[in-house]
Every structure is written in structure tokens, then in C-alpha cells.
């Protein structure tokens, strides 16, 4: 496969690939993999460059030994099957969540797969740091199979290249907008290729402020959830539903704002927020505007998914008061991924999930954990999708 990629001069290798062919000698959670992942975790948590990057620290923390061990034991459990990798996995990764590729790749790596990771052409500081860390561990030559089994590339739009790789791939992890995903799915792939698609989604936050006197924990969690990746990740909440209270709690908003650390927002941020504000006002849905340097909150009289069309991240929240949780069942559509919650009774949450349409909401997590990655993502158990179960029935 690697040799075949050389036919395309448009491809740039983000990490210099090993000259060796794919070895195919890895199996799920094999020793070399576990040890590599552990080295990566240590390097991210202790490295002087990565330690200043909250998203990289979060990745390092997620890869910590105990977490990987628990994923491993849950996966291998006491299954009657023998697990094998699925084969070659082609990761088509997003631009605006710049280190998302690492989660996609590492889960697949843990399952022992061969990986071709297509990165976006847009570079970023944290992505460069991460790639340097990965590169230096691979260069240490302690992990020969990992060095030869993982290729990091980037190329401009080119259906021929995407097709050539797709024809050799046993699974494709497609992170993209609806348009992009449709275009990629239309490209011929290997007959047995499994497509794991992560399409456009949005996330919401559900709060009950009744009886809450201390906003510290909530504010800290909300700030965490909206700050990561400039609020552009699917899992970052864009809408807050507050149960029962009729006023906009400006003291809470002020606290959230204080927890946001300084970030370099784009020069289009103010105009983007103005468009959202004016659209809501023009539709007569805007009740109140709070505009702070890092955070804009638009209180709306009602929610419709259209307001998400003019949400471009960078610290913008729609705030909607609802009388009861049941109201959500009428407004959430199938593109809702995560509900982060605060001070909501667990039985009510379970009841809500059961009452929602069958095809919506993939995760329900406490405020502050919206961005925490999990091996179950968008409803897929990725360890299952990225491996094969081999049935072995003993005979005589």
C-alpha cells in the first residue's frame, strides 16, 4: 500500500514513513501497542510543549495506563471469541477539531490495525506539537511494527487518491460535514470496507438551577466544554436549556466568562455573533443579549434547530428557559449528539432518553465532560467496529 501511494506526487507525508511494508503483526492490545500508547501518554503529560496545551493534556490523560487497561479488560473480558484487527483503516479527519485524528487513530491502533491517517491541510500549533511527539516516539525505533504500520499524510482534494486508498481499506473512519461525507461515500471502496461515519452533529446542555446557590463547579464545567476547540467540536454545547427559572442568571454567565482563559478568536468572530444575534432578533425570538469579551449569550424565547445554522462557535451560547424537561422531546432532532447536564435527576434523564425519537442523542454526560472522548462515540462501540470477532468452535 505504502508503495502505491508513491504514485501520487500530491501526497505529503506529515511524518516520514518507515521504508518497511505494513507488517500486519499486531493484534488488539498487544504489548508493543500498549507500551507505545503509554509512552505517548507520558510524553504528552510531561513534555514542556504539550503541557501548555489543554487539549493535548486531555489526550495524554485519556491515554493513561489505567484507562487503557480498563478499556482492554472490558473489551477482552471473558469473551468466547478470538479478536483480530479489521485490517487497514483509512482515517479521514476533520480540520476544525485539529487533534481529533489522534483519537480516531489511537482507538484503531489499540485494536492492532494498520492505519492511513489523512490530516487536513490546515496546520495548527497544537497539532504540530502532537505530531512532533508522535514522530519522536516512532523514531526511537522501540516500536518497529507501529513505525511501519501507520502512515500520516495530507493531500488537497483529490478523488483519485481517496479512491486508491479506499480500495485498499477494510474500514474508513469518516469525520466530515454532510456534504463531504456524501462525496466520500460515493467514492468506490473495497467491497468489504466498513464506513464509520461521524457526521454533522450538535450538542446541548440541560441545567436546573433551582436550589443551586454555588455556581462555581457549574461555571468551571461550562467554560471547559465551550472553550475546547473554539466551541467548534460537535460535542461542545451551543444551546443551554434551563429548567424552571425565567430569568437569565447573569451572575452565572459572568462566572463562566471568568473561567474562560484568554483565547485568540478569529477576526470574524464579532460579525458571526452579530449575524446570529440579528437573525434571532429579526425572527422576534431574541429576549436578551449578554456580550462579554469572550462570551456572547443570546436568550431566546424558543428553540428551533435553524439557529444552529448561524452558529460559528467562538464563545456563543443560545439560552432557552423551559418549564419542564419533557419540552425537549419536541425540539431536539436526530443531529443532537451530546446532552451535558447539571442538577438533573438521573431518573428524569433516563426517562428523557426513552421518550426522545429513536435516532437522536448519543451521549448524556455531566457538565464539564462534554469533550471527554470515549470508545463509544456517536453510538458506535469503536472497539467492536474496528476489530473482527473470530468464531472458534472446538470439535472433537
Amino acid at each position: 500500500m505504502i508503495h502505491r501511494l508513491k504514485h501520487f506526487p500530491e501526497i505529503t507525508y506529515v511524518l516520514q514513513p518507515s521504508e518497511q511494508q505494513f507488517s500486519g503483526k499486531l493484534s488488539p492490545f498487544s504489548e508493543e501497542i500498549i507500551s507505545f500508547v503509554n509512552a505517548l501518554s507520558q510524553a504528552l503529560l510531561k513534555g514542556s510543549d504539550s503541557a501548555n496545551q489543554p487539549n493535548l493534556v486531555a489526550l495524554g490523560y485519556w491515554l493513561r495506563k489505567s484507562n487503557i487497561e480498563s478499556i482492554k479488560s472490558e473489551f477482552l473480558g471473558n469473551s468466547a471469541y478470538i479478536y483480530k484487527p479489521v485490517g487497514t483503516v483509512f482515517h479521514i479527519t476533520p480540520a476544525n477539531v485539529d487533534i481529533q485524528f489522534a483519537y480516531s487513530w489511537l482507538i484503531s491502533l489499540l485494536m492492532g490495525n494498520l492505519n492511513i491517517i489523512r490530516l487536513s491541510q490546515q496546520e495548527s500549533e497544537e497539532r504540530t506539537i502532537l505530531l512532533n511527539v508522535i514522530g519522536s516516539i516512532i523514531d526511537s525505533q522501540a516500536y518497529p511494527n507501529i513505525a511501519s504500520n501507520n502512515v500520516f499524510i495530507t493531500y488537497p482534494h483529490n478523488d483519485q487518491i481517496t479512491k486508491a486508498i479506499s480500495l485498499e481499506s477494510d474500514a474508513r473512519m469518516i469525520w466530515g460535514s454532510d456534504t463531504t461525507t456524501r462525496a466520500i461515500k460515493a467514492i468506490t471502496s473495497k467491497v468489504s470496507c466498513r464506513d464509520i461515519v461521524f457526521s454533522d452533529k450538535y450538542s446541548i446542555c440541560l441545567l436546573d438551577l433551582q436550589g443551586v446557590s454555588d455556581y462555581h463547579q457549574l461555571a468551571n464545567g461550562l467554560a471547559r466544554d465551550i472553550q475546547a476547540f473554539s466551541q467548534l467540536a460537535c460535542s461542545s454545547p451551543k444551546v443551554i436549556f434551563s429548567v424552571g427559572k425565567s430569568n437569565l442568571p447573569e451572575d452565572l454567565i459572568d462566572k463562566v466568562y471568568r473561567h474562560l482563559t484568554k483565547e485568540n478568536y478569529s477576526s470574524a468572530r464579532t460579525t458571526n455573533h452579530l449575524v446570529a444575534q440579528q437573525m434571532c432578533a429579526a425572527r422576534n425570538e431574541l429576549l436578551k443579549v449578554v456580550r462579554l469579551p469572550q462570551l456572547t449569550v443570546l436568550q431566546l424565547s424558543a428553540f428551533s434547530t435553524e439557529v444552529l445554522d448561524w452558529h460559528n462557535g467562538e464563545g456563543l451560547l443560545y439560552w432557552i428557559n423551559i418549564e419542564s424537561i419533557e419540552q425537549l422531546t419536541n425540539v431536539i432532532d436526530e443531529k443532537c449528539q451530546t446532552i451535558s447536564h447539571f442538577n438533573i435527576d438521573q431518573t428524569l434523564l433516563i426517562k428523557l432518553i426513552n421518550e426522545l425519537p429513536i435516532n437522536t442523542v448519543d451521549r448524556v454526560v455531566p457538565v464539564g465532560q462534554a469533550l471527554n472522548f470515549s470508545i463509544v462515540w456517536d453510538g458506535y462501540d469503536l472497539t467492536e467496529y474496528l476489530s473482527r470477532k473470530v468464531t472458534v468452535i472446538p470439535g472433537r
Partner: protein
Amino acid sequence: MSELIPEDWFEMNPFALNQADKEIKMRQTLTSLHHHHLQHCEAYSNLFSDASMDSLEDFPYLAVRLFKYLTLQSIPQEQVFKILYSSGTTGQTPAKVILDQDTSRRQSKVLVKVLQDFIGKKRMPMLIIDHPGVLKSKDSYSARGAGIQGLSMFGRQPIYALNEDMSLNIEVVQAFAETHKNQPVLLFGFTFMVWQHFLQSLRKSENALNLNSGILLHSGGWKKLEAQKVSNEEFKRVCRKTLNIEKVHNFYGMAEQVGSIFVECEAGHLHAPIYADVVVRDPQTLKVIDNNNPGLLQVLSIVPGSYPGNSLLTEDLGSVLGVDDCLCGRKGKYFQVLGRLPKTEVRGCSDTQA
């Protein structure tokens, strides 16, 4: 509605009023228009019913992108005369602008008044740097087609310089240059087309034309040329070399605000005529900023009556260079456009390129 916008606007020289007098006059008309839109456009009244208007800078502005999402109109449906669509790149929603007959008429008047100040009153033989097919789709008014149609009335016997496939029709172009040798002629095209399909094609085929009494008008933005690192100076230099044309005027305007036409003068500055004005705002705070500092351009115009497009916050960057004192003698503000805000409209959690 015509009484909202007094006809005497269109009798005056478009650059004779100094800024202070112009602002007083504009504010009166804009205030009447504001009340008109409050009454007749629900979205506008939802937005601005409590806006104050003590000065031009206070005048409430609509983000220009709203025209992509909303149909904004201040006239009954039966008065709709023409719908203008902006040329968005493929896949993007185009902006939609609703015109009645009065607004459309004022737009043409203003265009005549302003352009005549730069190219004179005489209609000249005209070379359009495009292909004739661009006008064919009659039902939907594309900005390119509308621009060409609007400009055509300044020329005689328009000839198209390009073939349908955007290649240069060199025979036609050479015949045009030969027939009108040493006579004033008018050339018009979109900036990028002129550069890419006219000037570059002529250069590649090592052809030069002698249009020494010609005037070239071009518009449409520098975005694509910026990517090729072509400045206005370079553009003009190539025009001199390839066409032997000295008079090259860029102009700035947008479909969302009909009648706002800002033409580059002999000194290289864009000028606001009496019907329109520009204000520069800080992209982060949206506060008005001082001259010579770059910021977001807000454009104001007294021309639109059928829709609330009198004050728009654009996504273009520019700076005011001076007031009432341009070397060319025109009064009012003069400014420059410095490009667009970087695009950051994103969809969903990911925008991989296929």
C-alpha cells in the same frame, strides 16, 4: 415612497457637497427611510424599533449576511419589480435583494450620475470583457449579468471579448482596436476576468493592443488576485503595457446595497458620492474607528426604498483615507478596500475536504 427620497438628490453633482453638509442631508433622508422600513418590514422593526439616530454613525446597521437567510422587503408583493441575487460561490446561498420600480430607477440614475463624473457623458464604443452567454439566463438576475447590463448603457455597440469557454476572441478584440484607433472607447469587466482571461491571455499570446484613448472600468473584488499577489498597481501597470490604457478605474459595490457605487479616482482613491457613505468599525468591538485605521466597512445609501438596505455592515475590510481633500477635487470621504474578513463560517464538527 418617492417622497421619502427627494428627487433633488439626483440633480446635484455627486461629489460637490462637503462631508458636513452631505451628512445633514443624508441623515434626514435616512431617518425617513428608517421609519418607512419600521412600518413596512417586520424583520426590520423586530430588530431596530428602539434604535437612536443622532448621527450617521449611530444609524443602525444590518449584517450583510442576513440577505442570505431572510427575504427582506418593505413593499407589498405586487410592487416587486425585480429580484437581484448576489453571485455566491457555488454551494453557498446567494443573497436576495427585492427591488421595486422606484428603487431600480434610482439605482440606474445614480449609476449614470456617478460614472459620468469619471468617464464623461458621451457614449463610447464598448468592449465587454466577458462572453455573451452571461446575459442569457433571463429569469435569474446574476450579479455578473446585472453588472454588465447596467454598464452597457454607457457604451455603444457592445462587443464581447471572450468566447463561451472564457478563451480570448482575439480576432474580435483586434478588429475592435483597429476600428476605433485613437478614439475614446470603454472597456468593462470583472476584475478577475479582466486579469485572468484578458490581460494574461494577451500577454501569453504576445499580443498588445493600442487603446490609448480608452477607459477601463472593473469591479468584483481582489480576493482571487490577492491570492496571486497582484496589487492594484501591478494591475494598472499591466493595463498600460498590454492595452496602452492609462485610465483604469476600479469600483466597489455590492448587490445588497443597490446604488452604492464607489469609483476609484485619478489619485487611486475610492470616493463616496452624495447618495452613499462609508464608516469604518473595529472588527472586534464594532466601534467607529479613526481615519487611516483598517476595519470593517459599513456602507450607507439613500437609494434602497423597497428593502431595508440603507445601512449595512459588510464583511470587507478597508480604511477611510481622508475627507473633502482628495487631490482629484471631489468632496466627501475617500477610502480604500483592503480585502475580506477571513471566512470562518463552518458547518458542524468537521469540515474535511473530500
